[in-house]
C-alpha cells in the first residue's frame, strides 16, 4: 500500500518571543526558523523587544547574536540596557553576543561584503536567535545598494537555522518599512495612539505572519524597566 500523505503536515517548531502576552497571539511563538520585522517610530520599544527576545533565548539554552548598525560602543548600549530588569548580565558576551556593524558600514558599501562580514560572525556563533537593530539605518549608509543588500540578506538569513528579528524605523510618510516587509515572514508594528482621555498609548499589531493564525488589530502594550509586555485583547 502506498502512502501519499504529507509527512510534514505537523506544525512548525516555535520558540518563545520573550514578550509577555505576545506568544498567545501567535500560536505559541515565532516559527523556527523565520525572519521577523519589528517596526515602529522612535521610543516605541524596538531595541527593548530585541533584547528581551535574546534574553529569552539565553534562558532557554540558545545562542543569540545582536548586530547593531548604529556606531555605538558596546558599553554605551549596555549602560542603558543594564537598567532593564530582564537583562541577566551573566549572559552578555556568552549566550548573547554583540557585534557593532556601524563602523564597518561606513567604509564598506558592497552588499555582499557586508553580508559576508555578518555571516562570519553567524558562522562563528551559530546562533538560534539573531537581532539586527535597526536594519533601516543601512539604507542611509549604503544608499543605492540597499535593495540588493536586503534581498541578499533575506536569502542568507533563511539559510541559517535561526529566528532573525530585524528592527525598522517608521518614517512619517510610510506605515512601516515596506522594502523590509517584503523579505520577512512576519511584520509586527509598534505604534502610538491616543486614549479617549487624550493620553498617549502604545499599540502592537501583527500585520503579517506566514503559516500562523494570529491575533489581528491593535493591542495595548507597555514598555517599562520590566521590558515590553502586551495586553492582548485590550485595544
Amino acid at each position, binding site marked *: 500500500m*502506498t*502512502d*501519499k*500523505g*504529507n*509527512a*510534514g*503536515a*505537523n*506544525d*512548525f*517548531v516555535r*520558540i518563545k518571543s520573550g514578550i509577555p502576552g505576545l506568544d498567545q497571539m501567535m500560536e505559541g511563538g515565532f516559527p*523556527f526558523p523565520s525572519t521577523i520585522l519589528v517596526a515602529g517610530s522612535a521610543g516605541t520599544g524596538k531595541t527593548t523587544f530585541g533584547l528581551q527576545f535574546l534574553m529569552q533565548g539565553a*534562558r*532557554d*539554552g*540558545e*545562542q543569540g547574536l545582536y548586530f547593531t548598525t548604529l556606531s555605538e560602543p558596546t558599553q554605551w548600549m549596555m549602560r542603558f540596557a543594564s537598567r532593564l530588569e530582564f537583562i541577566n548580565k551573566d549572559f552578555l558576551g556568552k549566550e548573547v553576543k554583540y557585534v557593532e556593524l556601524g563602523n564597518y558600514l561606513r567604509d564598506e558599501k558592497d552588499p555582499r561584503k557586508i553580508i559576508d562580514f555578518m*555571516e562570519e560572525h553567524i*558562522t*562563528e556563533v*551559530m546562533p*538560534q536567535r539573531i537581532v539586527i537593530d535597526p536594519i533601516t539605518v543601512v539604507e542611509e549608509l549604503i544608499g543605492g545598494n540597499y535593495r540588493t543588500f536586503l534581498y541578499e540578506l533575506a536569502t*542568507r538569513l533563511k*539559510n*541559517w*537555522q535561526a529566528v532573525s528579528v530585524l528592527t525598522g524605523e517608521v518614517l512619517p510618510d510610510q506605515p512601516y518599512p515596506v522594502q523590509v516587509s517584503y523579505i520577512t515572514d512576519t511584520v509586527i508594528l509598534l505604534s502610538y495612539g491616543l486614549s479617549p482621555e487624550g493620553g498617549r498609548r502604545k499599540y502592537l499589531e501583527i500585520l503579517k505572519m506566514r503559516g500562523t493564525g494570529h491575533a489581528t488589530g491593535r493591542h495595548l502594550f507597555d514598555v517599562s524597566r520590566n521590558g515590553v509586555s502586551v495586553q492582548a485583547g485590550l485595544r
Partner: protein
Amino acid sequence: MHRVLTIQNVVLKLRQALPQIQGARKVLVTAPPQLINHVSLYIVCAPIHTGAGKVLFLSVDRPNQSIARLLDRHCNGGPQVLFGNPEMDSPPTGDVSCVTGLFAPKLMVDALGQLSDGPEARSSMVVGNLSALGFYNSNDRVKEFLHRIDDKLREQVITRVVLVSDKTSGYILSLARDFAEKEVDLSG
C-alpha cells in the same frame, strides 16, 4: 526543574551515548530542533577528528555555502569538502562529500553513493535534518529514501548511517525508528 539544553549539554549526552551505539550500522539521533545544526555538525566532524574515515553528508535545506563555512570554521583544520556532482568522471578525495537539497532524497543518496570512492573508503553517511524532509516530500518519497540507504549499506557503499532528526514529524520519526538499530535521544 526545567533543564536547559545547551549545545554543551547535548554534546555531553551524545558523548556519553557513544558506547551504546558502537557497532550499530543504523543510528537515529533525536535532538531539539534548535540544536539540530550543531548536532549534525558534531557528528559529521567526529570521524574527521579521529581519522576514522570519510563522511558523506546529506544536508536537507542548507545551501552549500553555509555548510562549507560551518565545516571550515568548526571542524578542526578545515576538512576538504566536496559538494555533490554525481556526473564527475572520477571520485573525489575530500574528507566530506556533501549533497544538499530539498526534493527527491532518494536521488540525493544516489548522488552521494557516486561520490564515494568505493568500499575501501569506509564512508559513513550523516543525514541532517531528516525531519525537514517532511516539508518537501511525500511520505512515500521519505520511505523510498530510507530503503535506498538500506541498499547502499548492503552494497557496502557506506558502512554506517546516522540520521539526525527532531521529534516534530511523528510519521517520519516512526519511519526512522523502524529503520534504525539504535536510537540516541538528546531531546529531553
